[in-house]
């Protein structure tokens, strides 16, 4: 029995089981001997059996001490395992933060590099010019809508009909239209009085420079740019490209908005 108890390969539970089995058999043997005092084949004397029983009982108490120690160890092991789990969770959290930070930083670094490359490539202007131009663009809402813009607001990111009519083009076309109307009135007067066909010829020559309109548009034409357009095109075709208007250091024109 001593070998079994000292055997380190056997678990405590197995040792306890074996001890209890042996104690059980010894008890039965003692009781049967006491009960059948007349039986002849006694392998073991009662005293021997009792000694054996006591020995096993001692071993049992020893093992129970061992069990207590092992329980304490097991408890501490469980505590350590819990701590490990906690640390594991914390590490995973940190890892996700790290990955996010890596992503953010890498994109930030990339954008910063792009910006630096842009800065190196760019032409330098004084910051005041840029700010003035930015203010100019922002003030007429050409690139960003006004904060209180709703559906039905007439403001647009391009010059509207009203603005165009107020400008140089609008005034020229108005003037041309007025002259055409005056000429038509004169023709009507002449028609009613003289009633000749020479009027028709002048009207055709008047419209010689105009294009044949394709009237698929529903709206009446807002700009009759035909009269001045031909003049401008003819002067432009005489000159070669890019005439430097060096005198145009004046600020933005008053006609637009």
């Amino acid at each position, binding site marked *: 029995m001593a070998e079994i108890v000292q055997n380190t390969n056997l678990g405590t539970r197995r040792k306890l089981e074996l001890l209890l089995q042996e104690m059980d058999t010894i008890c039965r043997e003692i009781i049967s001997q006491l009960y059948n005092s007349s039986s002849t084949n006694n392998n073991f004397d009662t005293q021997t059996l009792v000694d054996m029983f006591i020995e096993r009982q001692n071993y049992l108490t020893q093992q129970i001490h061992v069990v207590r120690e092992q329980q304490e160890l097991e408890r501490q092991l469980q505590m350590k395992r819990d701590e490990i789990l906690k640390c594991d969770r914390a590490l995973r959290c940190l890892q996700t933060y790290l990955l996010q930070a890596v992503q953010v930083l890498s994109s930030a670094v990339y954008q910063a590099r792009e910006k630096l490359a*842009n800065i190196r490539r760019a*032409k330098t*202007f004084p910051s005041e*010019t*840029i700010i003035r*131009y*930015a203010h*100019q*663009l922002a003030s*007429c809402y*050409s*690139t*960003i*809508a*006004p*904060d209180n*813009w709703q559906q039905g607001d007439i403001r*647009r*990111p*391009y*010059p*509207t009909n009203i603005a*165009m009519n107020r*400008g*140089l*083009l609008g*005034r*020229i076309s108005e*003037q*041309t239209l007025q*002259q055409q109307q005056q000429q038509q009135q004169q023709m009507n007067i002449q028609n009613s009085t003289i009633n000749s066909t020479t009027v028709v010829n002048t009207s055709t020559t008047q419209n010689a420079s105009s*294009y*044949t*309109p*394709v009237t*698929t*548009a529903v709206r009446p*034409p*807002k*700009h009759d740019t035909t*009269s*001045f*357009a031909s*003049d*401008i*095109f*003819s*002067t*432009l*075709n005489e000159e070669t*490209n*890019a*005439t430097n*208007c060096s005198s*145009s250091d004046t600020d*933005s*024109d008053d*006609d*637009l*908005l």
Partner: protein
Amino acid sequence: MNDDLIQTVVNDDRQRFLLDLEFVQTLANPQYLNFLAQRNYFKNPAFINYLKYLLYFKEDNYIKYVHYPQALYFLDLLQREQFRQELVNANYCRYIEDQQLLAWQRLQRRKSQLLNSAVGISTATNSNNNEVEGTNAQLSANAISTSTTANNTQIR
């Protein structure tokens, strides 16, 4: 031609420049482009040459006079024959106009988001007034600079 105004414009360099500037900026208006297309202006080679000539507004000296930078984007597109042909279609011009307005509003929403997030950050950190103003000014300047750089890249 008996028009005094036309004669003064043609003879005076400044007036001619103003006319060019005005016309180039009207090209930002898709309805006007549709108008021009339907009256066959884009079939005239002299007009096409004029559009090519107007590209000088993209240079540094002249671009600072343009209030509507989208016009320069359309000017680039107008150099292409296919775009000029498509402009006759009124639906296409309406589509362009819708996209223009939507982009216009989207930039405004983005700007307000940036400003709101800047305000949110500043209130959350409970910094003093100077720092708040500094942050706001810096962030608003960033917002403006990103929009203008966006415009410049668009123009290029």
